[in-house]
């Protein structure tokens, strides 16, 4: 059955049933009935039923969704795992995987309802818990007249919640209990992630209505995760021996494998956020190439300017900084704006990680704040600049006012920073009360792999 016929079949069924849900058997029957090209009934119903998912868009969005899963397992797991010491490799990848799985389950229980539910105010939504109102026939709006299947949209958004929860834990590896990581994930998603996702992406949300530009989650994912990571890391305290003892990454090879997988997956993240397979998705795609390339090389150049050698870890760090910076701008910038954004974010993140972190003395173990938080803030504010049509961005030349857009971006960043910080303090306090945050000194010295999971990464 070709896709056009299937579309017509669904359209016909939808019309005939007048909004009632149709069974798959009936859809197939209807499809057979309308196989004859140019049937008057089919021709009439195609126009009447605009709100039918285009299979091409659905197919792209399902692909984008699994690409984001690729970012989590194995992408983020290997990226983070390689950066830790070998005695904490398994605990790091288990925390990433565990947090992502828990986020998926919570997402279908109350996450989707809290972020995109049918009822709501500027901060939260509600209703549709346990996906009670979602069926194969229900649809989610995109940015045009097109729609996509709601299950696809629910899954796509689910992967965002999952990776954001896992991202946070990078700052606290090598000392946070597994039970604490799980409990924190559950509470943090509920009081921090879902409300911010609602504020930025849902109709009626505070920042959405304000006109804040966040194409693929610079504010929701990266600033949110970065700030939360910093607060949780400060709450938890430094690793024993930090910064006096050397704690070099145990496998930069795996870190680079992870970084590469993150880049691949990020196309699902950024180009998928258009929710359609159209030209803007193409724009997001090329921006995700060039901003990242620029960020990777810019970090290595910074290392040279600082009198060191250009390093593989610098390459990987700049790559992530470029990806993070282009996330809010993916569909909101021209390719050359994206390149500038990648370079600026990489340079600023370099200073945050190599200079400021050491002076302030917090132990953000894998630089979640230094790279995701800082590059995310640069990207979010910079999006207000590169959106300008004068700089090759897709903004409307007649209406675009850069000053007010930048102000809106800054307000959105500030709201996200404060919400994430306050919410994380509440979540951390609750977790400390219920499970405790840190492993014992003995477990920390021996490594969390044996102490928390009873297995070794390398034998």
């Amino acid at each position, binding site marked *: 059955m070709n896709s056009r016929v299937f579309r017509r079949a669904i359209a016909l069924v939808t019309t005939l049933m007048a909004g009632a849900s149709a069974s798959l058997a009936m859809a197939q029957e209807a499809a057979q009935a309308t196989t004859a090209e140019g049937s008057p009934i089919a021709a009439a119903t195609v126009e009447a039923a605009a709100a039918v998912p285009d299979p091409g868009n659905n197919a792209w969005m399902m692909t984008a969704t699994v690409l984001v899963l690729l970012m989590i397992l194995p992408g983020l797991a290997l990226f983070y795992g390689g950066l830790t010491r070998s005695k904490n490799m398994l605990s790091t990848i288990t925390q990433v995987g565990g947090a992502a799985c828990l986020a998926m389950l919570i997402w279908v229980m109350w996450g989707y309802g809290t972020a995109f539910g049918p009822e709501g105010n500027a901060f939260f939504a509600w209703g549709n818990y346990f996906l009670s109102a979602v069926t194969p026939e229900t649809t989610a709006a995109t940015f045009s007249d097109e729609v996509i299947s709601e299950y696809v949209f629910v899954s796509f958004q689910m992967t965002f919640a999952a990776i954001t929860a896992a991202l946070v834990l990078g700052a606290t590896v090598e000392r946070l209990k597994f039970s604490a990581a799980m409990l924190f994930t559950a509470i943090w998603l509920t009081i921090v992630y879902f409300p911010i996702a609602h504020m930025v992406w849902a109709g009626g949300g505070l920042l959405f209505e304000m006109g804040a530009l966040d194409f693929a989650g610079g504010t929701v994912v990266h600033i949110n995760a970065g700030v939360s990571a910093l607060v949780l890391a400060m709450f938890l305290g430094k690793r024993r021996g930090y*910064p006096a003892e*050397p704690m*070099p*990454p145990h496998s930069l090879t795996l870190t680079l494998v992870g970084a590469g997988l993150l880049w691949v997956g990020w196309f699902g993240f950024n180009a998928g956020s258009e929710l359609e397979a159209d030209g803007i998705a193409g724009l997001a795609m090329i921006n995700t190439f060039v901003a990242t390339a620029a960020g990777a090389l810019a970090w290595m150049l910074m*290392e040279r300017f*600082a009198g*060191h*050698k250009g*390093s593989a*870890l*610098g390459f990987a*760090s700049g790559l992530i900084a470029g990806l993070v910076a282009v996330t809010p701008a993916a569909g909101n910038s021209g390719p050359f704006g994206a390149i500038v954004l990648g370079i600026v974010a990489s340079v600023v993140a*370099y200073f945050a*990680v*190599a*200079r400021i*972190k*050491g002076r302030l003395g917090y132990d953000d173990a894998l*630089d979640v704040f*230094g790279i995701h938080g800082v590059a995310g803030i640069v990207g979010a504010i910079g999006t207000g600049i590169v959106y300008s049509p004068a700089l090759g961005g897709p903004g409307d030349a007649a209406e675009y006012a850069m000053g007010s857009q930048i102000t809106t971006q800054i307000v959105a960043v500030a709201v996200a920073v404060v919400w994430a910080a306050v919410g994380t303090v509440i979540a951390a306090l609750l977790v400390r009360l219920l499970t405790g945050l840190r492993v014992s000194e003995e477990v920390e010295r021996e490594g969390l792999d044996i102490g928390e999971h009873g297995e070794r990464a390398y034998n």
Partner: protein
Amino acid sequence: MKYIIVVIKPFKLDEVREALGSVGVAGMTVSEVKGFGRQKGQTEIYRGAEYSTNMLPKVKLEIAVSDDLAAKVVETIQQTASTEAIGDGKIFVLDLVEATRIRTGETGDTAL
């Protein structure tokens, strides 16, 4: 008999082995080792954080030779392993009390 312990730069191993073969050394034991001398290690930098690693990778050779060959062996190693740069390594010569070939039970020079 002499027992000669040599620490050299890893990339010099093949050259030294070849030269020793040509002066009549019948066997040697090679290990990959780490250590430091006047070179004092090197600095590694990860995302701007500096770690000084004191230990550098080297290769250690252990060679047992007869007394009359020892001086020639030391001279050969010194000449082939030198790059005239810091970190070329050292040669230690020890008196060797006894040697026994396990397969045959031969002892002394004939066991070497």
